[in-house]
């Protein structure tokens, strides 16, 4: 079975199982006696082991196998769950994730054995009995390897024509014989012959061979290669290759096991050999070509023709090599989205409707060709409306396909906060809501780092030490929250804590100390302006640099990451009561519904999602608060923004008595945008303005209208 095609699925599912394990182990820590959780864990661990085995990732299988053993004991109540065990399990999960990362990058599990972790697991199983676990583990490894090889061996016996112990039939030249003699006579080493058979489905035979050689190098030196090492490197061999190597070790089983540990190795034949054997063979070759073969057992004689067979097969093998090598170089995974079947069905329906609509248009146009009256404008009109409705729905559906819940990104955070809590010695708890909130896949993928920064920030700077918290009359356990929800065309993610809040006086002092502002200027800064300092590059408030935060590469990176996704970050903080970071992200990246407005002779688009209402306001209704224009609307005082002034238009000579005001909202904030004219609602495709004039916060992009004209898209969030 060729497993490489299942690699994507393997990676996907392994990720899911790791996540499930992580979630459930967290739950287990809370309720060590919950049998459902333990069963859930057991199932996930078992699937993980099974999949790793199927894919031939032996090390990963080994580790998960031992984890499963521990879970099984937990299920049988022979091992008690304590935080020490949970720590070990989390470390194991990290190791499994490490394997997965290596698999993603190279489609192989790598060579890390994680022996220390496996020992820890076995210690747990042995009730911390200590020393003996080492042996029993080594034994079990050897036993499993042995049983593996014997199982594989059986298969080979039935259908592999290559024959075993091919290395005995090697014909060596004087050079190689000299090397063998030197090893035996000068260094007193033992000689071993080995023939390795690689599974038929193996794509990267050269890579496997290389790993075998690497494994052997731990034991000794390889003296003779057949085919030559160059040919093996170029993958010019069939399914087997033979080597003769020298070693101090006499433990053939251990050598065999370490070679078998390389994945996709079918079987290994290993026997001690002597120089004399080969000397005789070489002599015999001089007299008769096949006496050497007949000197061996029957099975080996079959090997000689098999080698001859291998030669014609070589070109074919080498032909497939370039493709295989290419595959090895680039990362093996593609970015995928798992799609709910319902979403795809909706898509399919809409596409069929689209085809019907197209057919109707075709029939109208052909019937109008026949009739002399020209186009039947009414049916045209209705068909176009129909088409419009379909394309809108189609767009929505395609967007939905791209949408994934942020769950996949945020569900690793509880674990992270747990680790931080232990590391910092501050009890804290993460409360998350709205994990099901959906966002574009590309956004979700890039959201992880900034959110992680914010959470670490809360854990490190936000939450106080238990003593301080007690003194302040707060519960000792700090609470960190992450709330996600949708608001109009935006998704809001709030990350915050009930900690100390931002001490603006300290920030101010720091800003003055760093020479960012003068002491006089600092006095006049608003709270928001002071907090904005935190987002400046290399402005860290941590008293000492920890590995959690405090390097000054936190908040500015958060800000730039979020802004790169078309979003923004805001902070609210109350001294002594905690701070909240609000991340606002656009729901979709490409196409939005917008209201087109006119200011003088220029057209602007305002995202429909942020518009609350459109009002006609008489000029007399405008009041002044702090010399700024406001209007009183249904109990709300809304500031008026004159777009013409903001966008540098010449003022009108005579001001109209009635203003058209588009009321937009951002969170709790509202603002009334004064425009000259409303054009109407339209679906627009967002285009970037290009890098050279991107330093423009008011304009979030441009769009091309039906007549080819370009219109700017106003960024409502930046206006307020």
């Amino acid at each position, binding site marked *: 079975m060729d497993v490489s095609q299942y690699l994507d699925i393997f990676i996907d599912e392994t990720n899911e199982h790791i996540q499930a394990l992580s979630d459930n182990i967290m739950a287990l820590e809370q309720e060590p006696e919950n049998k459902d959780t333990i069963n859930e864990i057991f199932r996930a661990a078992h699937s993980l082991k099974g999949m790793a085995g199927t894919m031939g990732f032996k090390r990963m299988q080994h580790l998960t196998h031992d984890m499963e053993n521990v879970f099984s004991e937990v299920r049988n109540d022979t091992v008690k769950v304590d935080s020490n065990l949970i720590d070990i399990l989390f470390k194991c999960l990290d190791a499994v994730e490490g394997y997965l990362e290596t698999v993603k990058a190279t489609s192989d599990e790598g060579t890390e054995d994680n022996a220390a972790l496996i020992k820890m697991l076995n210690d747990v199983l042995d009730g911390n009995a200590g020393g003996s676990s080492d042996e029993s583990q080594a034994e079990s490894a050897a036993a499993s390897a042995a049983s593996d090889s014997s199982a594989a061996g059986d298969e080979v016996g039935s259908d592999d024509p290559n024959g075993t112990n091919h290395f005995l039939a090697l014909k060596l030249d004087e050079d190689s014989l000299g090397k063998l003699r030197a090893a035996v006579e000068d260094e007193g080493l033992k000689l071993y012959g080995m023939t390795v058979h690689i599974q038929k489905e193996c794509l990267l035979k050269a890579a496997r061979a290389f790993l075998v050689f690497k494994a052997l190098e731990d034991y000794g030196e390889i003296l003779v290669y057949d085919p030559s090492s160059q040919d093996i490197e170029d993958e010019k061999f069939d399914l087997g290759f033979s080597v003769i190597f020298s070693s101090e070790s006499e433990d053939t089983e251990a050598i065999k096991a370490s070679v078998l540990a390389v994945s996709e190795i079918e079987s290994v034949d290993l026997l001690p050999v002597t120089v004399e054997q080969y000397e005789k063979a070489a002599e015999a070759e001089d007299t008769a070509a096949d006496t050497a073969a007949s000197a061996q057992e029957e099975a080996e004689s079959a090997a000689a023709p098999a080698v001859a067979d291998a030669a014609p097969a070589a070109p074919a093998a080498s032909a497939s090599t370039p493709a295989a090598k290419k595959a090895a170089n680039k990362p093996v995974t593609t970015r995928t989205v798992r799609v709910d079947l319902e979403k795809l069905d909706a898509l399919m329906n809409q596409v069929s409707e689209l085809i019907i609509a197209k057919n109707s248009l075709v029939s109208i146009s052909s019937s109008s060709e026949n009739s002399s009256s020209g186009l039947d404008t009414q049916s045209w009109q209705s068909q176009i409306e129909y088409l419009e409705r379909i394309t809108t729905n189609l767009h929505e559906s395609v967007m939905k396909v791209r949408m994934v819940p942020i769950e996949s990104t945020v569900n690793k955070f509880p674990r992270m906060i747990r680790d931080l809590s232990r590391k910092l010695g501050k009890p804290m708890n993460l409360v998350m809501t709205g994990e099901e909130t959906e966002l574009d896949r590309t956004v979700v993928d890039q959201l992880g780092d900034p959110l992680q920064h914010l959470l670490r920030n809360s854990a490190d700077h936000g939450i106080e030490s238990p003593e301080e918290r007690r003194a302040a009359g707060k519960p000792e356990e700090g609470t960190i929250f992450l709330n996600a929800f949708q608001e109009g065309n935006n998704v809001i993610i709030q990350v915050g804590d009930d900690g100390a809040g931002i001490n603006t006086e300290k920030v101010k002092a720091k800003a003055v100390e760093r020479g960012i502002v003068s002491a006089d200027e600092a006095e006049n800064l608003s709270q928001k302006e002071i907090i904005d300092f935190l987002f400046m590059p290399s402005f860290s408030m941590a008293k000492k640099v920890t590995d959690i935060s405090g390097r000054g590469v936190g908040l500015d990176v958060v800000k730039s990451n979020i802004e790169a996704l078309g979003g923004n970050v805001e902070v609210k903080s109350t001294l002594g009561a905690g701070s909240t970071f609000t991340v606002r992200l656009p729901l979709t990246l490409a196409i939005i519904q917008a209201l087109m407005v006119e200011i003088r002779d220029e057209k602007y688009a305002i995202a429909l999602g942020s518009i609350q209402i459109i009002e006609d306001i008489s000029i007399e209704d405008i009041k002044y608060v702090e010399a700024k224009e406001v209007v009183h609307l249904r109990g709300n005082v809304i500031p008026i923004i004159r777009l013409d002034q903001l966008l540098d238009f010449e003022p009108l000579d005579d001001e109209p008595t009635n203003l058209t005001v588009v009321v937009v909202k951002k969170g709790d904030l509202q603002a009334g945008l004064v425009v000259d004219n409303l054009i109407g609602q339209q679906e627009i495709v967002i285009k970037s*303005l290009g890098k050279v*004039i991107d330093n423009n916060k008011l304009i979030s992009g*441009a769009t091309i209208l039906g007549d*080819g004209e*370009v219109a700017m898209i106003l960024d409502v969030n930046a206006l307020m």
Partner: protein
Amino acid sequence: MAAELETLDEEKIQYIVVMIGSEQYGLDISVVDNIVRMQKITRVPKAPSYYPGVINLRGEVVPVMSARLKMGLEEDEITKDTRIIILRLEAQGLVGILVDEVKEVITLGESEIDRSNQNSNKQDTTYINGIGKSGDSLVSIFEINAIIDEVEV
């Protein structure tokens, strides 16, 4: 100098010669994507003053820069000869440059370009990395990156 005369098969580079104000300038042809006639430029509020705005180039929004304003000359005078040179740059993508007229394509070797005055202190010369001699006229060679990258103070 003598060494330069010996390099007979030196690499020749093609330049598009354009008029900006009363002077001739050369643009390395390898970065030019195409040349389009003047069309409606949509203003971008708050953009640097030497960016009159953006155009719709076959469905792409492309920012257009005024070479005249960038170099501190008086505002562009739109005539029938006005062209927008579309540059394709690795870092910035597509960028248009407004020029008064496109004259011709010339081929210059390194020996025909005088690099000596590029360290002059005059403000204007920072966008130029040499002066080419084509026939009896002089062509200032644009340093593309300097012209696009430099931010107006």
